[in-house]
């Protein structure tokens, strides 16, 4: 739950903020109810046990999504690869989200499904086999052709458009994950007793003095 790993949980934050002593405002029952509310949201999350069953992607698409997501955000010294951070699962959920506006959902589904098919066709046309079945060098050749908007040659625009969309989905999934947020060094979502403004160190980096 919130604040794990930071040594302070939601209840503690509320207590420090002065809310908890006001029983009428925030009773333990109320807090529990808030937790249940979140738990209900989580209940729609992919189950943690057993192999993940995608709600939207086929088995072949799922393999492609894993490979592509990791090509976009691979592991490095600061954090693991996209597939290790649960990014493909987030993308699968978003594409199948029962609460999404139906037309919007269908548009995104078609864009991603069509894009994955485009990628396989492009690889097959160049090398005689699909994206996941090829070599690293083959994948790199195709990604280099669609990942840099300014360098995309005529005829590959649809692939580039798909890649831009998919890269955004991967970024959303990764940087909102626990490891992604830690990697970014986001320091908020916490109880702050006194707001002290822009830290001195940053002020001097920016050449600013607060008036």
């Amino acid at each position, binding site marked *: 739950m919130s*604040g794990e790993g930071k040594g302070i949980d*939601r209840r503690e934050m*509320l207590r*420090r*903020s*002065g*809310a908890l002593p*006001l029983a009428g*405002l*925030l009773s333990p029952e*109320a807090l529990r*109810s*808030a937790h249940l*509310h*979140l738990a209900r*949201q*989580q209940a*729609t*999350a*992919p189950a943690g046990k057993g192999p993940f069953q995608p709600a939207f992607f086929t088995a072949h698409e799922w393999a492609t999504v894993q490979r592509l997501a990791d090509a*976009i*955000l*691979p592991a*490095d010294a600061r954090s693991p690869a996209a597939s290790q951070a649960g990014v493909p*699962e*987030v993308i699968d*959920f*978003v594409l199948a989200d029962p*609460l*999404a*506006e139906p037309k919007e959902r269908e548009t995104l589904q078609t864009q991603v499904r069509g894009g994955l098919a485009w990628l396989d066709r492009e690889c097959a046309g160049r090398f005689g086999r699909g994206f996941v079945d090829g070599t690293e060098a083959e994948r790199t050749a195709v990604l280099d052709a669609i990942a840099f*908007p*300014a360098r995309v040659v005529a005829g590959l625009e649809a692939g580039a458009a798909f890649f*831009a969309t998919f*890269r*955004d989905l991967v*970024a*959303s999934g990764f940087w*909102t*994950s*626990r490891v992604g*947020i830690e990697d*970014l060094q*986001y*320091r*908020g*979502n*916490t*109880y*702050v*007793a006194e*707001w002290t*403004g*822009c*830290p001195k160190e*940053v*002020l001097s*980096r*920016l050449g600013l003095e*607060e008036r």
Partner: protein
Amino acid sequence: MQVLVPPRTWDVCIVGSGAGGGMAAKVLAEAGAEVLLLEAGPPWDSARDSAMFAWPYDSPRRGRGHRGKPFGEFDGCLGGWDIPGEPYTVAPGSQFNWFRGRMLGGRTNHWGRISLRFGPWDFKGKSRDGFGDDWPIGYQDLKPYYDRLDEMVGIFGTNEGLENEPDGVFLPPPRPRCYELLIQKACRGLGIPVIPSRLSILTRPKGERPACHYCSQCGRGCATHSNFSTPSVLLPPALATGKLTVQTGAMAREVTTDTEGRASGVSYVDTATGQDRHVQARIVVLAASACETARLLLNSRSPRHPNGLANASRAVGRYLTDSVGVHVGAHVPALMDLPPHNEDGVGGMHVYIPWWLDNRTLDFPRGYHVELGGGRGMPYFGFLHGLDRYNGGGYGRKLKDDYRRYYGSFVGFSGRGECVPNPDSFCELDPTVVDRWGIPVLRFHWKWSDAELKQARHMQRTFRRIVEAMGGTVAEPEPGPETGYGISTGGEIIHEFGTVRMGESPRTSVLNSWCQAHDCRNLFVADGGPFVSNPHKNGTWTILALAMRTAEHIAEERRKGNL
């Protein structure tokens, strides 16, 4: 044996539990009236129901919005642009978006807590420049209510001595964030003022409400009641009187009238059962939002009020306005690679740009203010989407590092400008479409006039000059006249006003200077419908001040036996 229970007659029935309805309920219940408050949506309590402090990874949706939560799944406001079973229509050639809150507290669960008083010029625009109409009241009429409102609710800001951005009773403002200081520095060189914003968020404790803890999540609903929403601030004291009854799940269908044409109560649909109910009341106060109030009046036809209630003037639904909105987002290299720090702050900007120019040097009337955004906020679904427009795209380790470096380096400028009422912008009943309860729905007509388009162009140029002065870049080229200079769609800024406007003359206005219907003396309006103009300032503070004045007037008239 049959027991005959005489139907209860309430002193006051209020429709809508947002800013205006909540204030009217508080004032009237405290004055001793037996008050029934009807709300179409369900109950909601930020202390119990808020997603405050949830992390994006607590949900597989990662904070992404959906049909019922257009501002993100953690957002506190229920309702939206597209409510199943509650359509509205838009006339051919028009575009209009209508956001509705459906919950206790209405859109006070949505807003940005930007609490700007209207100033002396705002009430007398026509006298100053000939556009639109003057209000029947002036700033001095409302000033005492603004002053008391500041103290009752709590607001931070600074007294700047600006004539049309009146001083108030302010708590100390929070210190600016880093990017806000950088914007301030660039603006200083351009002669553009950047001053502390004025938000109804507590920076000091007030009564039982603790001060803000700076998690920046006001929009999710504040579990500690440190910001303003009706259920957090106005309903608790109102309920404590024992005089207020709140009925949620009550969708008002029409205001009923007696044979004399006076309001006799409200009929509503119990949304849980679909059953029609009727409550009797000596006084009816509509606070359903500008457009819902107009809809309710137009749907309240009777032999004495054949055009709809209080509509002898045919002004109901007319003079519809919304703020001009223009947004420019930019990347500022100076903000890259900064040391990590918590930039959450309050749930909104710490500084803003008030209107600063003289219209005699401009090609449009009236003004705008600028709301500032940016910073190292909580990452949500949508995080750095479109980064390729700035970093050239790519993939792999270099891309991963780019996300880290670009995080926190974007700023946003949202202009909010005055819209002068025009004859092409109004709402009326759609002759053929009804909602799921069988209630005829609104049809919107909308057109920005040349004045607003020129203002939008001015915003574009100004914001881009500021970005340039910061050494930043804007990915999108400046939009031209073919796209209205990037102007928002009508309704998109969610500042609809004017549909039941006040005025001296019953021929051209719906309400008198006490927000009392010219044609029906026990009917009042306490939302944004009565506004004669739509200054660039977000309207909630004025809805609250005006509702306080209206409700105190009702209480006084009741005391005198006049109502």
